[in-house]
Each structure stands twice: as C-alpha cells, then as structure tokens.
C-alpha cells in the first residue's frame, strides 16, 4: 500500500485535491450556501495588497496626470494670459468707444440745444510748442469752416479757428496769450475781455477795481467780439485780485482744453440768453461743468445760406419747454417780452393771412461767422429774439398787440436803446466821449425800463441785473467812435461790408482781425421797417 501510494503519489494527490474541491463545490451547490471562510481568507489576503497596489497606481497615476495636468495647465495659463491680454485690449477699446459715445452724445445734445449752426470736428493734434496753444481739427474748408469761427464744446468755448486748410483747421485756444474773448460775468453782468494767460487759465481784463467779482462767478461770452455767440459758457472765476487799474481776475475755462477730442465749430452763431442768477444766490462754481448751456430763447432764422456742410444742423426752432417756462411776467423785461411775443404771434397770423407776402427774416440775431451775406431784404419780419430785442421803450410794458415804435433811421438813439451804447450817432460829439467808457459793461440788448434814452447817454440803465457802474476805458482807448463796424450782410446798414470803419476800434477790437466787418447787434436788429417788421 505504501508502495502503491508512493508510486502513484502525484495522481493520488491530484485526485484528492480534485475530490476536495468537488466536495466543496457540491456542498455549496447542494446547500446553496457559500463558503465564507475561504472567501474571507482570500479577500483578507488579497484586498490589502490590492489597496496597496491601487494606492501606488493611483499615486503614480496622480503624479503622471498631475504632471500632465501641470503641463496642460501651463499651456492653458499661457493661452488664458493671451486671452486676458486680448480681452483687456478689447475692454479698453470698448471703454474708449463708450467714452467716445458718451462724449458724442453730450455733444449732440448740446448741438441740439444750441441755436447756432455747428460742424462737428475731431481734434487730431495740438501745437508742437508750449507757448502756442493751438489745436488741429479734422475738418477744414471742405466742411465750410472758415477763419474766426468759434470752436465750442458742451462744457464751454474752446477757441476760434485761426487758419483753415483744405481738410484741417487750426484752432487758437482761449488760453493762448494771443487769444481773446468778449466776456460777461454772469452774476454782475460786468463786461470784460478775456485773454489767454498760458497754462490752463485765462485772465479777465478791464474790470475796474471797485467792481465786486468773487471766485466762483461764471463767465459767459458777451458776443461783442463777433466771433463767439453770446451766452456760451467760458469758465469760472478762480481768483480776483485788485490790480493797479483793473482787477486781476483769473478764469478757469469750463472746457477741458487738455483732453479735447470732439468739438463743434460754429459756422453760424446765434446769440443766446445768459441765465441770470440772483445776486445773493449760491456760488456759481457749484454748477456742473457739463451742464448744457442755456437754451436759446430767441432762435435765429437762418433763411439764407443754408448748411455749409452736410452734417451741420441749423437750429431755427426753440427748445420746447423753455419758451413758456415763465408763467407770468416778473419784471418789466418779462412783460416786454410777453408783449413782443404777442406782437410776433399776431404778425405771424397776419403773414399767414396774407399768403406769405411777408418773407421770413434771416440773419436777425445771427452772428454770421461765415461772413456770408444773406439775401437782401431777408430781415423783414424776422422773428428775432424777444429777450434780446425788447420792444421799443415808447411802448408801454405789457401792452400786447401794440406795434412797437420804430427807431429813427439815423442820428438818434431814441427808441433804440440797444444801439445807443455801441453805435452812437457819429455826428454827436457828446456821445463820443461817454459811450465807449461804458462799453465793456453795458449789456448789449437789455432794454432800459425807461421810456426813452437820450443820445449820448452814459450807458443804458440795466433793467434788472447788476448795478451799472461806469467802467474805465480799456487801454486801447478810442477816440470816441463806435466800437464796431457795420455787418456786411445787412444791406440796410449804413456801412457797406468790407469798408473800414470810420470810427476807431472798440476796446475789444483786438479780439477779431476782422473788426471792420463786425456789426453791432443793434444794427442787426434794425430793419427798414423797424425792429419788429
């Protein structure tokens, strides 16, 4: 037996092993039970190793994929950095475009509000020297721009067109020492000449030392220079010191002259009203700089000429809501305005009834910067500015429907108070010595409440605003002649266009090289049939 087992040991072991496993299998199948012990042993032995291997594999996997991810992350980081740079540039571009859109919108709003005809232009350069404050625009003579046109923004005036080329124009900024603007202090209604002071400031000259000027007073254009229409904001007084003869008043322009990008060139200026503020009112410096200028009360009617360029916008219409903003007259001037409006409405009805026999006026109240002569006779029946052209003083205030008296054609200022301070009769020697002395401060179009102003008066009395004080004569003193010449587009004027004025230049004559072409506002208002016809 022993030998048999030894001889067939391998087979016996095989059979035994198979038998045991067969019995084990049969037991499981027969009893439908598992053999948990074997599984527990096997799992207990294998699973720890599996955990170890799994951890190692996961570790290697993590390291490998971490490395791969790191490489990928680096590539992604580089890509994202490039994208961030691109997006930054795009964002910057979009911000620039948004800012430009805001500026253009403000400019368009301002252009819609202002009655003047303007041409939008883009600032493409500036002067190459520190001593010369000039800008270059991307519009030139092709766009109808001509020298001595006012350049403005929504914030305030910028300067005037100095030289014009075919596709560009050079603008002399108001801060240039060679620049000058006829200015008007809003609160006190004092007139003066604003000259560039270099840097970012201007100096308001020819304001007497005894005048009350405080920092914060706003300065507007007076329209006397025949370049800048009246009523445009210039800046704010930053300091006012007593000088040798005149005050040394520093004015900071409203327009941000060092960061201009878009401007408007006034091809046909229309004077506006300066918003009057009460004397004890708050400091005007608190007013927002970007506030649109005062709305025109008396829009011009540029019937002649037409638009110089395609994008010019004429503003013959009044801004809604501004005409009737005053419910009832508060002052004599308001009552006169109402009377004038009533007269105008009646006249319009009469025009319609007559089938347009009365032609609309042109050029009334319009500062024709382009020096384009309007058609003759176009001033007849012009709906000129009510506030700027009050009814003649002979008419009783508030007498609506009564045609105002016509001023005498020549030689007399009776009934034409606006012309008195600027264009006295050349034959009256008495006015020669007195009228120029009050020119810088005399309101050009404010009607005196009195019924008549005699010739040679010492300045028309202001109806409402600041107390009138005589202003010492500026240095370029005259010989007592009227300060400004006749306007060329007014055929009814006594002085034909282009003729040099017989009188000496006004204190503001240096503001414009074409002083001979300048016309007093009163001459603009004067028509053959009278101021209202």
């Amino acid at each position, binding site marked *: 037996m022993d030998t048999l087992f030894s001889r067939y040991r391998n087979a016996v*072991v095989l059979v035994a092993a198979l038998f045991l496993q067969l019995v*084990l299998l049969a037991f499981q199948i027969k009893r439908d039970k598992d053999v948990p012990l*074997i*599984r527990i*042993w096997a799992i207990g032995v294998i699973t720890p*190793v599996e955990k170890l291997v799994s951890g190692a*594999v996961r570790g290697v996997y993590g390291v490998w994929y971490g490395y791969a991810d790191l490489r990928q992350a680096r590539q992604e980081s580089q890509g994202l950095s490039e994208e961030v740079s691109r997006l930054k540039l795009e964002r910057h571009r979009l911000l620039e475009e948004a800012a430009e859109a805001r500026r253009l919108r403000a400019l368009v709003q301002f252009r819609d509000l202002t009655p003047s005809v303007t041409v939008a232009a883009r600032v493409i350069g500036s002067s190459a020297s520190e001593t010369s404050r000039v800008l270059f625009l991307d519009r030139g003579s092709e766009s109808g721009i001509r020298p001595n046109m006012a350049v403005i923004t929504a914030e305030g005036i910028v300067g005037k067109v100095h030289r014009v080329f075919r596709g560009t124009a050079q603008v002399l900024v108001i801060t240039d020492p060679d620049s000058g603007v006829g200015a008007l202090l809003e609160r006190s209604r004092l007139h003066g000449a604003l000259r560039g002071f270099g840097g970012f400031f201007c100096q308001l000259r020819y304001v007497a030392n005894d005048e009350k000027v405080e920092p914060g007073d706003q300065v507007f254009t007076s329209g006397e220079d025949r370049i800048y229409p009246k009523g445009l904001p210039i800046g704010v007084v930053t300091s006012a010191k007593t000088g040798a003869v005149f005050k040394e008043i520093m004015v900071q322009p409203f327009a941000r002259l060092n960061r201009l990008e878009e401007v408007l060139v006034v091809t046909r200026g229309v004077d506006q009203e300066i918003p009057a503020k009460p004397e004890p009112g708050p400091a005007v410096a608190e007013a927002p700089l970007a506030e649109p200028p005062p709305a025109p009360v008396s829009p011009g009617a540029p019937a002649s000429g037409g638009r110089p360029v395609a994008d010019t916008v004429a503003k013959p219409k009044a801004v809604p809501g501004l005409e009737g903003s005053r419910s009832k007259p508060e002052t004599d001037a308001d009552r006169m305005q109402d009377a004038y409006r009533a007269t105008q409405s009646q006249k319009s009805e009469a025009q319609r009834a007559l089938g347009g026999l009365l032609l609309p006026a042109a050029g009334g109240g319009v500062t024709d910067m382009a020096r384009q002569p309007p058609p003759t006779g176009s001033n007849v029946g012009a709906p000129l500015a009510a506030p700027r052209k009050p009814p003649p003083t002979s008419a009783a205030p508030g007498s609506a429907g009564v045609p105002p008296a016509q001023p005498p054609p020549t030689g007399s200022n009776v009934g034409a108070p606006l012309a008195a301070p600027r264009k006295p009769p050349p034959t009256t020697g008495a006015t020669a010595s007195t009228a120029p002395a009050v020119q810088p401060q005399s309101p050009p179009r404010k009607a005196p409440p009195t019924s008549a102003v005699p010739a040679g008066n010492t300045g028309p009395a202001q109806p409402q605003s600041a107390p009138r004080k005589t202003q010492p004569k500026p240095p370029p003193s005259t010989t007592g002649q009227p300060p400004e010449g006749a306007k060329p587009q007014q055929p009814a004027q006594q002085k034909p266009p282009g003729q040099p004025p017989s009188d000496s230049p006004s204190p503001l004559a240096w503001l414009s090289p074409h002083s001979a072409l300048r016309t007093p506002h009163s001459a603009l208002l004067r028509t053959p049939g009278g101021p209202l016809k």
Partner: protein
Amino acid sequence: MKVAVRMRSDLRVEVHRFNPLLVIVASLFAIIIQGYLPMWFPTTAALDLPLLVTVYFALSRRSQIAGLLIGAVIGLAQDSLSHGPIGMFGMTKTIVGYAASSLGVRIDTDHASVRLLAVFGFYYVHTGLFLMLQHVLLGKAIQIPGPRSLAVAMVHAILAVVLFQFLDRFRKDY
C-alpha cells in the same frame, strides 16, 4: 563532473527552485492585476494571468504535486474573488498545474517556442475544462469558443513568453 550532477538533477526531475515568497507574491500579483487591470482596460478582462503563473511554476518546478497545489490555491483564490461557487477555477487550475508539471518533466520548456505552444495549448485546456465543469457540475450550457478565443490564446502565449523570461530571473538552478 558537472554533467554528472546535471544528469543526477535530471533524474530528480525538479530542475529549478523558487523562493516561496516569490511564488506567493507572483500569484498575488497575478490575481490582483487580473482584478485591477480590467478596471482601466476592459479588454484585458479576457486575460488570465493566474493561469500563466500556474503554468510557469508548474513547468519550471517540474513537480506535479507542487504544480497542482499551486494551481489549486491560485484557482481557489480566483474563485474567492468571483461571484461563482468556489472550486471551479480551483479544479481547473489544479488539473492544468498537474498537466503542466507533467509536461515539464518530459520536455525542456525553457525554450520560448515551447513555452509559446505550451501556453497556447494550456489556455484551451483550461477553457475546455472550465466549460465542461460548468456544464457538468453547474448545469450551464457549453459555449464553444469562437475565433476570438484563438486570438486570446495567442495573446496569452506571447504574453507568457515575455512573462516567463521575466520570472526566469528569480529562479534558482540546481
């Protein structure tokens, strides 16, 4: 003199010995890889690494008892990790181990081509035995292997050649 010793060794049939720890580690590693690899590479589920380990140790040791015992243990461990009844892989690999040891006693299985053919044949022996036992003992229908099994058997044979070359580094010759 050396030839005489080798002749004596041949008479003892067992030519190579292995560190028992290596046998355990290799068996465990084969079982673990067998259960772990399909998680990442599902196509590797067709591989039977425990079979290769069983065949290798059975062929190398040329001991039928050692071969069948290694096959039995590895088969039972493989059964333990499966959801079926314990003993199917055990009996199959016991027979394969015994057969491989018997083959190793008779021919020199160190050559790669012999190993290739031996593993190729043992794969079919293993598959046939498993299907037969399943049919006989568990009453399951016999699914005759298709052409795919040929490729799988070839893959096993090629993989066995490489694996056996690697495991030969750890064996000790008498």
